[in-house]
């Protein structure tokens, strides 16, 4: 437990919709909705769409009439674009502090301890303006003595238009009044169940939660809840990255756009998900020893049903994609049954450990010490520089009939030469 820390949370506003707007100025002020995989439901909304009363999770067919009436623009999710824009934002943030924790695709915590001599509100505007100018994306910056308070400051910055996107709660003498105006359900780490529990017990706003008896909190909300309360009191308990447990499992799976019958198509889809899962493993500098493959038909349809899974262990932990592809295909051969219309196939990696904890082996080279790591580093570096899947495995096939439905997909403006936006003058 430490005191006197300074954190900033930088959060991109309506990130997916904002990415679409960057390359299509016509979308400015228009309500925008981004669809889930297979174009089923709305998963991300612009502020204008929220104001029309449409909620996240709404199936797109339910709002057909409103789409026409309000000129709502609907897009398939373009994760290639969002991922690349996110990487650009994070890169800019590294210019402002080396102590950075990327918390999600559109959020990052910055450790600003060494900059307390500066006017941090002005520094927040500098961050906000730089990102706006260099990427076209709007962000909000919340500054606080703990990560939890930085999250709350970010919420205030976003909700209060007068603040122009930056709020430093550390310099506010009226912190208690601000906290009293926010419902506990908006506190980082308080989920719906805990929010209900707190409401039932008379803790409605954040100030009440901050002043709650420690013993009661520890009993009802465990040590994690107590850490949240201490953080609300300004005592920093969650270091950068410390709160993020290393991933115990990595899952990669998507429903198919159309039912898949053939083993070949399933193999290609499984390879594709397996490649992605192992990429994620390497992104986190981890290795895994166990792989599970599962497949299922569509249980919502009146047709023969089948689902199964199986797993196997690798001889030694690895992050080398071919090690996992071989294992995945062997498993799939064992659980595939012909004659069913498959809806989904997926892969889960488990028994994961950080590369630095990989024990050396006397009789077999470990992933870190042989050419497998060099090959993967090379592959990742080319794909990072030139574009995702620029080099990939032939096992994912060419036709990819199984790919998910994305009928309203915008171009990959930043990662594909063919999709570069044209400027006409």
């Amino acid at each position, binding site marked *: 437990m430490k005191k006197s820390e300074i954190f900033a949370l930088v959060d991109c506003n309506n990130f997916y919709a904002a990415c679409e707007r960057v390359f299509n100025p016509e979308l400015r002020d228009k309500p925008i909705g981004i669809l889930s995989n297979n174009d089923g439901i709305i998963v991300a909304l612009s502020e204008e769409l929220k104001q029309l009363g449409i909620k996240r999770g709404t199936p797109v067919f339910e709002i057909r009439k409103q789409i026409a009436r309000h000129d709502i623009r609907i897009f398939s999710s373009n994760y290639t674009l969002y991922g690349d824009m996110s990487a650009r934002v994070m890169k800019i943030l590294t210019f402002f502090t080396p102590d950075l924790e990327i918390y999600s695709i559109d959020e990052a915590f910055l450790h600003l301890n060494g900059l307390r001599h500066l006017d941090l509100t002005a520094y927040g505007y500098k961050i906000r303006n730089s990102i706006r100018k260099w990427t076209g994306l709007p962000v909000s910056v919340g500054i606080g003595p703990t990560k939890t308070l930085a999250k709350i400051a970010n919420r205030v910055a976003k909700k209060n238009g007068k603040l122009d996107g930056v709020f430093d709660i550390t310099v506010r003498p009226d912190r208690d009044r601000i906290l009293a105006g926010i419902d506990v359900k908006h506190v980082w780490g308080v989920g719906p169940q805990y929010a209900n529990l707190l409401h039932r017990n008379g803790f409605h706003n954040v100030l009440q939660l901050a002043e709650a008896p420690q013993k009661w909190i520890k009993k009802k909300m465990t040590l994690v809840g107590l850490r949240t309360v201490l953080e609300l009191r300004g005592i920093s308990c969650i270091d950068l990255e410390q709160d993020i447990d290393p991933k115990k499992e990595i899952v990669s799976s998507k429903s198919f756009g159309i039912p898949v019958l053939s083993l070949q198509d399933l193999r290609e889809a499984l390879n594709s998900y397996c490649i992605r899962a192992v990429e994620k493993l390497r992104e986190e500098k981890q290795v895994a020893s166990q792989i599970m493959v599962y497949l299922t038909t569509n249980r919502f349809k009146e047709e023969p049903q089948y689902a199964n899974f199986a797993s196997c262990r690798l001889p030694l932990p690895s992050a080398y994609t071919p090690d996992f592809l071989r294992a995945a295909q062997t498993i799939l051969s064992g659980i595939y049954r012909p004659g069913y219309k498959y809806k989904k196939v997926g892969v889960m990696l488990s028994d994961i450990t950080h590369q630095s904890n990989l*024990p050396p082996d006397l009789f077999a080279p470990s992933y870190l010490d042989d050419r497998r790591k060099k090959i993967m580093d090379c592959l990742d570096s080319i794909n990072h520089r030139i574009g995702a899947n620029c080099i990939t495995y032939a096992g994912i096939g060419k036709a990819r009939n199984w790919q998910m439905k994305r009928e309203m997909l915008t171009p990959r403006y930043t990662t594909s030469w063919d999709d570069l936006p044209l400027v006409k003058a």
Partner: protein
Amino acid sequence: MKFSIAKSDLQSNIQYLYNIVPSKNTMPILTNYLIEADEQNNLLKFTATDLEITVVVEFQAHVTEGGKAAVLARNLNEIISSLPEANIQFLIQEDTLKIHCERSDFNLLCAESSQFPLIPQKDLSNVIDLDAQMFKKMIENTHFAVSSEINRPIFTGIYWKISADEQLMVATDGKKIAEFKIINHIPTTELVEQIIPTKGLLFLDKVINEDNKTVSVLIESNRVMFAYGNYTVFTHIIEGKFPDYSKAIPANNNNVLVINKNSLRDAVKRVSLLASEDTFKVKFDISEEALLINSANREEGEANERIEDCIYTGEPLVIAFNYRYFTSILAVIESEEVEIRMGKANEPALFFNKEKSDKFTARFLLMPLRLS
């Protein structure tokens, strides 16, 4: 089938047999003991098997009627343990084993004994006789280093080599090696090299005591038979070639630490209380002045211990080990002091008994963990 026996006699003979009964098996008959009673010789025979290892124990009882029955091992064990110290009477009536002891009566349903797998015949005609205590010592000094990873089956057993003048046992899991060699004089001309599953050897380790001096061994192409006292153990052999582990053993480890085994073990155990539960990493900072042992766990804190009562010759060295493996090696070091020979921080370390024996040689190798 009808027999009676004192509870203590029965219990002492079958106490380790339950270890052989598989806990999970698709063949329900294997969860039974096969009991055979021989009226002529007043002999009882209990058999348990998991198909890979079969153990037969024979002992005297008062048999009034011979016969055979397969009885659920768990039930029988629990019933015998619960009974008072007295004579127990067993009687088979149709498909039920009736057990009577003082005021207690149990009726235990039997399985079809004909379904029990065939038991190999005990054959003592071509056996090699080995010193039982030294055999036990070899198992105890090596079994802890075997692997539990079924992906590498050859590492799940102990490599055993017998020649006319020496015996060698080696176990490894790729992270540590335990090697134990004894000098002997066995009337055999052929060299025997096999990988024996640990389960059968650990059973023998449990039953070998001071009463019987010899273990008789018969090695066949795919099976080994061990006969010791009342017990006969048949175990399959793990197929495959044991790796040439000698290549992994460094020749020039010139950083040598000599230290009291117990004080080192106690210090490591204390420091390990705050070691990471993922890596079990404990760091050793060694110089001629002192040995510093350290562990750190970001969530819980850190632990340090300084030992000056040791002799170190070599370059200052920082090296990390899995404390579980480290203490498992110290547990089999017999001499008061252990000698640890190290190279660089990423090279394997060798452990020896400081005081040498003229009956055996033992050496243990441990791979260090990455420092960062």
